[in-house]
């Protein structure tokens, strides 16, 4: 009797293993919205800042410029109107009146 039972069990196991169908896909309930998860699938890599040749990323403090240097720089920017000595002139003359062309 025990032998018969063992054979029956082995046969059942063999049958179940050979005849197993592919698993059915899990039934989905189309009436239920899947929960929205705040997860980005395939999140792209964060854009890296472009390689910078600046040693520091923050602005450097303004360069130290003396008042006299600033005046000279501004004078250059306003037009270096220091008059060059012309032939026959000893130095830079200061003529307030003449606006004559050569």
């Amino acid at each position, binding site marked *: 009797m025990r032998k018969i039972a063992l054979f029956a069990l082995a046969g059942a196991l063999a049958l179940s293993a050979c005849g197993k169908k592919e698993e059915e896909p899990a039934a989905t309930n189309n009436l239920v919205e899947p929960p929205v998860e705040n997860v980005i699938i395939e999140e792209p890599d964060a854009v890296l800042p472009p390689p*910078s*040749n*600046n040693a*520091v990323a923050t*602005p450097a403090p303004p360069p130290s410029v003396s008042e006299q240097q600033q005046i000279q*720089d501004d004078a*250059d920017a*306003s*037009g270096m109107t220091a008059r060059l000595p012309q032939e026959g002139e000893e130095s830079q003359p*200061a003529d307030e009146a003449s606006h004559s062309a050569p």
Partner: protein
Amino acid sequence: MNRPDMIRFSTLALLGASVLSASTLPAYAQTPVTQPPAMAPTLPPAMVQPLPPAPLPAPIPPLWATQEAWANDWLRSGAEQGLTARRKATATLTGDALVSALLDRAKALSTGRVDAADFLEIWALRPEPYDPRPGLAKAVAEDRLAQWANALTPPYAGYEGLRKGLATYEAIRDKGGWPVLTATSAPMVVRARIALEDRSVTPTENLTDVLQRAQRRYGLNPTGLLDTRTLAALNVSVDDRIAAIMANMERWRWMPRRLPVNRVQVNIAAAVLTVFEGDQPVTSMRAVTGSPQNATPMLSSNIHSIVVNPPWNVPMSIARRELFPKGRATLAKQGYKIVKTPEGGERIVQPAGPNSALGRLKFDFANPFAVYLHDTPARGKFSSYDRLASHGCVRLEKPVSLAELMVASDPDLNGQIQTLIDSGKTQRVSLPQEVAVYLLYWTAFASSNGTMSFRADPYGWDKLLAEKIEASSSRADPTAAPAPTPTIASKD
């Protein structure tokens, strides 16, 4: 110099008017023909004599062979003075053609190549009329052509600095220019690029320092970062830099040959003001100049007075465009007053006070554009590196110190400006001496060590000037063979 002619013309016109009026007056108003009208202008016969014939042009002696050779060489040097973008092949001239070319070149170097009729109205700083013929005739006769030629160019360090800078940038161009930089350019590439313009750069110098110096030369915020604006300035082509230098050399030719030793100069493009005393800069300050839509004119004038606590009589153009659309209630709330004009119209006045658009001081000088130097309640702009934002006036960072300088020679006014302001009273203070003021437009200038600085061309005047020269200056370099492909940079 033409005043006598103008008076004669005016008098003749008056005579014509009197004849016309006499013939059209009603009979009861006419005086008998036998008597001249009592109020009619009467002129001595000498006043209506015909104009004397124009003097003949000074004859120019024939040039010797050595003079002709020198003159042809000199004519080929147009590129060195920024008259041509590159050296060009030129034919050898003789006789009248050579004399004509010399006269044209002399005029181009002395007063520029823009025809008087081509000046924009707001390019009100214009060269004096100049006839090169007498000088050339004298130079040929005395065999002093080189000295004559040397005296033609503007006798200022600024022009000379540009001339040297032009040679530097043309050499850079001839060696292939500079590379285009990006934010990823290697530090050594950036350093090498900047070193092309700034010879003080060393291979081991901190890049931040190199960049800050470059940013100061371009009028940018000296952050030491290779930011977008710095990249843009560094990537301006060398040809465009050369064109800017040439445009500024041309504007130098409009300057008077002698400037008053005491003067105020404003660079509109850089929005900066410098005070010169005894021909030396004694103080400077930031300014706010006209926006591109409200360009500050180039001009020269004399500051004759300062208005303390000035009201602002709003120009109608600004009132129509910006204030009247706000509505009367809003204007009243903002402190404006609408007043009737004698013609029956209305104008807007902003009373004097701390919020007046003119601030506490206005420096008055005659000009047809209604622009002035003045204080402003909007102080924040002075810390910006973009200071072209006014309606055309020049707003001053330190108006009180400028006013104090101008009145210092008057013992009654010396040190009194702040007191006058504090009084709250509107009053005009006449200056002990008028002070010359020059509103100039420089987009390229050399520092004393020869390094060039540049500003953007906010009004587009460099390009416009190049176009005007291109249109009118075939006479400037008549020996030049036509360029194969004319470009804007070919300013001959």
